[in-house]
């Protein structure tokens, strides 16, 4: 009787082991060790400010000394420190940056801004799907791939979590499943995802469990072509074990009394969610756990009422301080961002006119900021100086020109993706080639 309890199906096991060996090869190739120093892959971070930011206080301000027919600057309602934009040199020309952006000023040498982008909607849901993917959604449903997914697919070199999304949806329509984002609802969950198994069984029993899962026959698998569910699960288990073996979770314990964490606490505003989000994003890249990270840095920008005057600038400052800290941190091992690109965006802007409740409503002329080395530095595009409206621009110079193009998210994404070495054709707009400083090789 006991004889039958010993697994007699060696041929089946051998077959499975062969298949799983292939899966493991896929998972391990090419191996880039966790915590490797000086890894060569290009890193990408997308920072999302949720709710629709006021670009007049940020990336597309106006000089308060001027008068604007269609814009209420309403600076008297703002705290003194938020009344005056400041000049910054970008690509050899002087540009105004909003008063909330002081924390980003040290990184102006890496900055490319796209102004006057037509979001073509003032619906949060539609604009979010549009801004995350750079492709016009179907209603509010995203049609394209998140830019983080595209970046991960281009430059992943075997990271354990190639694409990570923190507090934000991520889309993968066209790429392999391994580039789908690992989602976290909160940046603190990273420790649950890469930490020790909760309620782990004794080591020997865990080993038997893993072996049984490797040997288990699946009735579902014949329904699939390509990679099988057991392969996917096996790859995931393998990655979890490797994460646990590396004990990399300590690199995300921001309260730990270690020299590295002391440095991070000094650098980042870790007392708020924005700081935790960007610190987690940077650590995911610096530990080589991820190639691309998309994070919602902060929400609360949807200020339709009187709180616009107080909350909007404070929240922008909080977000930009967190992003500025992350830029500083990432420049520590990549000073010129030769292998780093950071995108900062929101789903749309806010109206140039103050509404009857003392706030600003939704506005379609948006700004996107890129910090990196693949694009020409400076400002491409413009909104109408007098009313923050849309303007046609020359696709080469980016300056206003009648008969030029109307800048859209498709143009921005096609340009960014082309510079990262990807295929811009899904965006169905020509990249702004004159603004590509260099094209990376995937």
């Amino acid at each position, binding site marked *: 009787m006991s004889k039958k309890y010993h697994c007699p199906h060696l041929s089946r096991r051998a077959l499975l082991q062969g298949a799983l060996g292939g899966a493991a090869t896929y998972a391990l190739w090419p191996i880039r060790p966790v915590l490797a120093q000086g890894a060569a892959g290009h890193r990408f971070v997308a920072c999302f400010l949720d709710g629709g930011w006021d670009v007049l206080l940020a990336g597309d301000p106006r000089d308060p000394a001027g008068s604007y027919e269609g814009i209420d600057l309403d600076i008297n309602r703002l705290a003194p420190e938020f009344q005056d934009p400041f000049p910054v040199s970008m690509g050899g020309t002087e540009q105004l940056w909003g008063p909330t952006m002081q924390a980003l000023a040290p990184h102006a040498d890496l900055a490319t801004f796209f102004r006057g982008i037509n979001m073509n909607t003032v619906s949060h849901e539609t604009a979010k799907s549009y801004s995350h993917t750079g492709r016009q959604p179907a209603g509010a*449903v995203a049609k394209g791939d998140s830019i983080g997914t595209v970046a991960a697919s281009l430059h992943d070199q075997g990271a354990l979590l190639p694409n990570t999304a923190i507090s934000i949806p991520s889309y993968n329509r066209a790429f392999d499943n391994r580039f789908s984002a690992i989602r976290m609802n909160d940046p603190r*969950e990273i420790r649950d995802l890469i930490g020790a198994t909760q309620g782990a069984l004794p080591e*020997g029993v865990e080993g*038997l469990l893993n072996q049984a899962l490797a040997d*288990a026959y699946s009735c*579902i698998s014949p329904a699939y072509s390509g990679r099988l569910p057991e392969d996917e699960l096996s790859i995931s288990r393998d990655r979890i074990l490797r994460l646990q073996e590396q004990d990399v979770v300590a690199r995300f314990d921001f309260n730990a009394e270690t020299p590295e964490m002391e440095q991070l606490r000094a650098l980042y505003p870790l007392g708020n969610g924005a700081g935790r989000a960007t610190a987690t994003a940077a650590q995911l890249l610096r530990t080589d756990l991820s190639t691309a990270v998309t994070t919602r840095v902060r929400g609360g920008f949807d200020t339709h009422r009187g709180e616009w005057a107080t909350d909007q600038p404070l929240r922008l400052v909080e977000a930009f301080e967190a992003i500025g800290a992350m830029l500083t941190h990432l420049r520590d091992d990549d000073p010129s961002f030769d292998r780093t690109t950071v995108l900062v965006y929101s789903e749309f802007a806010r109206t140039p006119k103050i509404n009857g409740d003392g706030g600003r409503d939704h506005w379609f002329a948006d700004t996107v900021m890129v910090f990196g080395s693949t694009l020409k530095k400076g400002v491409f595009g413009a909104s109408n100086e007098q009313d923050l409206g849309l303007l046609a621009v020359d696709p080469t110079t980016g300056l206003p020109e009648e008969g030029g193009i109307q800048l859209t998210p498709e143009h921005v994404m096609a340009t960014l993706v082309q510079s990262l070495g990807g295929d811009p054709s899904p965006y169905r707009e020509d990249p702004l080639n004159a603004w590509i400083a260099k094209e990376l090789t995937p």
Partner: protein
Amino acid sequence: MSSMKSMAAGLGLVVMSSVGAVGCSNDSSPYTDPRSIVAPEEVPETKRIRRLTADQFFASLFVATGQRWDDEQQFAATLGRPDFAEVTAEGREMSVGFAKLAGDAARQTCRRAVQQDRETADADSRVILRKIDEVGQLDPFDSNVGENLRYLALRFLGVYAVDDEDRRLQPWFSVLQEGLDPSDEARFGEAEDRWIAVCTGLALHPDFLTY
């Protein structure tokens, strides 16, 4: 024999001429049947692997083990539950994150289920150890182990195994018995953990988690 060959040749000619007539074409290029069998590796990868949604997973685990995972609500969004404001689609993709959290959930619920079963005298009220006679001192070589594994395969995976020789049961026999001597008292030591491992393994099985 030669007459048979002649008949075959004649039939061949008839068939060929019929095909030519039906095809109404003078094209002499060979006809390729689009229904021809394609090797599995040549089949385009059109079907993405889809797993249970977060709520389906929680509900399935509860039905299978009788226990709820403590962290369901904390990790629901991370496991793909939409908020129907910004995210309207259920997360159904396999990932490291899903595998890790599903493993944590399975271990917790299975541990509770097995420990509760060991305190339940009425066998029919047990969830995991329903067919095991003696739950006070679990024996991995209990004569009803096979029957209990068949019951669990049916409960978790919808698999009806006729007897203990079924290859789908063998990995679970190994979890319970590998490295143990049926006559050695030491076999009782890890029996509870090994039953928890069986339960956990079934809850992490592709047939439990995927469509």
